[in-house]
Every structure is written in structure tokens, then in C-alpha cells.
């Protein structure tokens, strides 16, 4: 019987692929945002409104992770931007190699973008551990889900740079304690940003959009500095 020393990171293969992606995105000056939430919290709808607001001035693209169907990529394409569906076939998260493959297969269509949105599979747990080469993770929480989500799924709320509370136009109709969510998020991610939006009425969209354009400006400055 032999005990073999291994000392190898389980997610090393994913980390290596993510590092490669991050380098590619940095060279192109593309801001990459990884959106994570439970199913039905409004990721695709938020993206549709975000794209409508930004596509006049920025080159945008989308990757849509789902277990089945092309529906979300079709919704993004209808807004007039290139988008590709990644079907995970039962897997509950996207990994960096899937992103790598999807981008390679799209050829030039999803390169040289200003912003690439990656919409992860609807799930608050599994996507948390998989680096996709993004600049930051965004977690969405809709007011119809209940205000205890941040403490129930702390890993993603602690790691996301931005928390977006969605569907705030429904606040009068649901028992959702916004103040409690603000407190929970502040304790999990003291340096994170929190925005409260309604894609339907447009409330709060300016704050969300300015986070994106601010991050893009910062990334471009960093890319410019190394050129």
C-alpha cells in the first residue's frame, strides 16, 4: 500500500481556463459580467433593458447558460446583439471551458466587445465556485423571493461585487423587507454595491448602468496603461 502525495487543486483545470479567458478579455478591453441568481429572478429581463439602454454606444454580446432550450439567447438576439446559448445538459453551472468553447465556436462575433454578459444557469449555489474569467459576479434577488436569501445562500452574496434587487415595482404587493436585505448584504459584502431596480418601470436602472459604464471605463484605463 502506498500513500501518494498529490496536492492538486480540484478546480485547477477550470482555473487555468479562466485565467486564459481573463487574459483574452483584458487584451480586448472587454468588461465581462457573470450574472447569477435563482431561476425566475429576472436576469434575462434585466439584460434586455440594459442592452436597450447601452447598445447605441457600446458593442455588447451575451452568453446564456441553461440546462435546455435556446430561449434566452433568442431573447437577447431579438434586442439586436450577438448572443449564444450554452446548453449544459443537466449541469447546474457554467464552467470556464464551456465559455472558452462557445467563444471559439462563435469566432469573431463575440470578440472585441465592450461588454460581454454571461448569464449563468439559474442557481445560487453551484455557479459560485466556478471562475469564468469575469471581472465580477453580479447576484440578483427579486422581491418575490423572500428577504432571507442572502443569509441562506451567503457564498454568492459575499462574493458578488454587485447585488441587484429586482422587481421593486412589486414591493407594494409582497411582504419583502428591503431594509433587512440591505443589512444582510452589507454584513456579507461590506465593500459590495447594492442597487434596487425595476426593469418594468426603469426605476434604479441608472444606478445599475452607471456601475457597468464605470467598471468599463476603469478596465479601459487599465488596458491603456499596459499598452
Amino acid at each position: 500500500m502506498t500513500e501518494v502525495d498529490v496536492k492538486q487543486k480540484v478546480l485547477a483545470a477550470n482555473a487555468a481556463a479562466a485565467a486564459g479567458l481573463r487574459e483574452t478579455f483584458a487584451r480586448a478591453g472587454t468588461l465581462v459580467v457573470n450574472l447569477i441568481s435563482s431561476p425566475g429572478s429576472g436576469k434575462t429581463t434585466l439584460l434586455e433593458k440594459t442592452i436597450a439602454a447601452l447598445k447605441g454606444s457600446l458593442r455588447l454580446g451575451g452568453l446564456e447558460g441553461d440546462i435546455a432550450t435556446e430561449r434566452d439567447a433568442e431573447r437577447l438576439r431579438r434586442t439586436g446583439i450577438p448572443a449564444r446559448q450554452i446548453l449544459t445538459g443537466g449541469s447546474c453551472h457554467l464552467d470556464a471551458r464551456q465559455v472558452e468553447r462557445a467563444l471559439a465556436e462563435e469566432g469573431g462575433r463575440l470578440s472585441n466587445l465592450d461588454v460581454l454578459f454571461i448569464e449563468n444557469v439559474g442557481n445560487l449555489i453551484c455557479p459560485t465556485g466556478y471562475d469564468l474569467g469575469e471581472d465580477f459576479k453580479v447576484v440578483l434577488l427579486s422581491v418575490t423571493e423572500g428577504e432571507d436569501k442572502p443569509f441562506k445562500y451567503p457564498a454568492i452574496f459575499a462574493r458578488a461585487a454587485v447585488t441587484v434587487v429586482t422587481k421593486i415595482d412589486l414591493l407594494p404587493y409582497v411582504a419583502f423587507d428591503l431594509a433587512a436585505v440591505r443589512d444582510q448584504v452589507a454584513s456579507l459584502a461590506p465593500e459590495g454595491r447594492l442597487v434596487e431596480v425595476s426593469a418594468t418601470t426603469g426605476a434604479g436602472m441608472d444606478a445599475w448602468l452607471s456601475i457597468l459604464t464605470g467598471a468599463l471605463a476603469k478596465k479601459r484605463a487599465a488596458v491603456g496603461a499596459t499598452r
Partner: protein
Amino acid sequence: MHEMGVAAEVRRIARESVADRGPGRITRVRLAVGDLAAIEPELLAYAWDALVAGTPEEGAALDVDWRPAKQTCRVCGDLPGRAPGTWLRLCPRCGGVLRVTGGDDLDVLTVVFEEDDAQRREQGGAG
């Protein structure tokens, strides 16, 4: 439930680490898992058993060393260990912001490999 994917990656790494050792089987794999690695211990054990069933690794044990995250308060200093899943990032004593380090481990540490001596002798005693 991404524990199945993690279990599969653990087995791939374990197999790779003993690939040049000739006939035999993996009987034990030791993993380090951090508090903040988003791994459910029970789900991982379940996934591992399901994965290895009916394969050469059937019955192999998966041992997990849990690695805590360290929480440090600027004012109060290092805090004693808190229960896994305690993610509050504010100091329970003074309310200050905590710095959290470590706890994101997810590593294969060691693999125990049992050589198949009978098969070795048949093959001419090599190894």
C-alpha cells in the same frame, strides 16, 4: 448540486496521480475542503459513492479535512473559529468589518494506492 462534477474531477486527479504505478486500485482519497468552498459534505459523500459504484474505485474512501476560514477584525484581532456557514462579515464584538482569509481550499491531498501483487507477479514481477 455541483458535487458530482467535483467528485468526478477528484477521481480524474486521483487516477492521474497513480497512472504510472502499474496494477492495483485506489482505496482512499484525502481532500482538503474549505468552509467557503460551497461544498456540502453530505452531498459530496453521496456523489462520491454514486460515482465510484461499479468502477475500479468502488468502495474507496473519501476523507475530508475541513479547513476553516480565518476572520480578523481590525480592532479586536483574530476571532476564534466560528461555525461553518457563519458568513457574517461584521465583527460580533465591535461591529467592525472583518477581513476573511482562507477557507476556499478544494484540493486533493493524498491518494492511497493498493498494489495488486498477484497481477504484478504474473506480469513478471516488475515494479
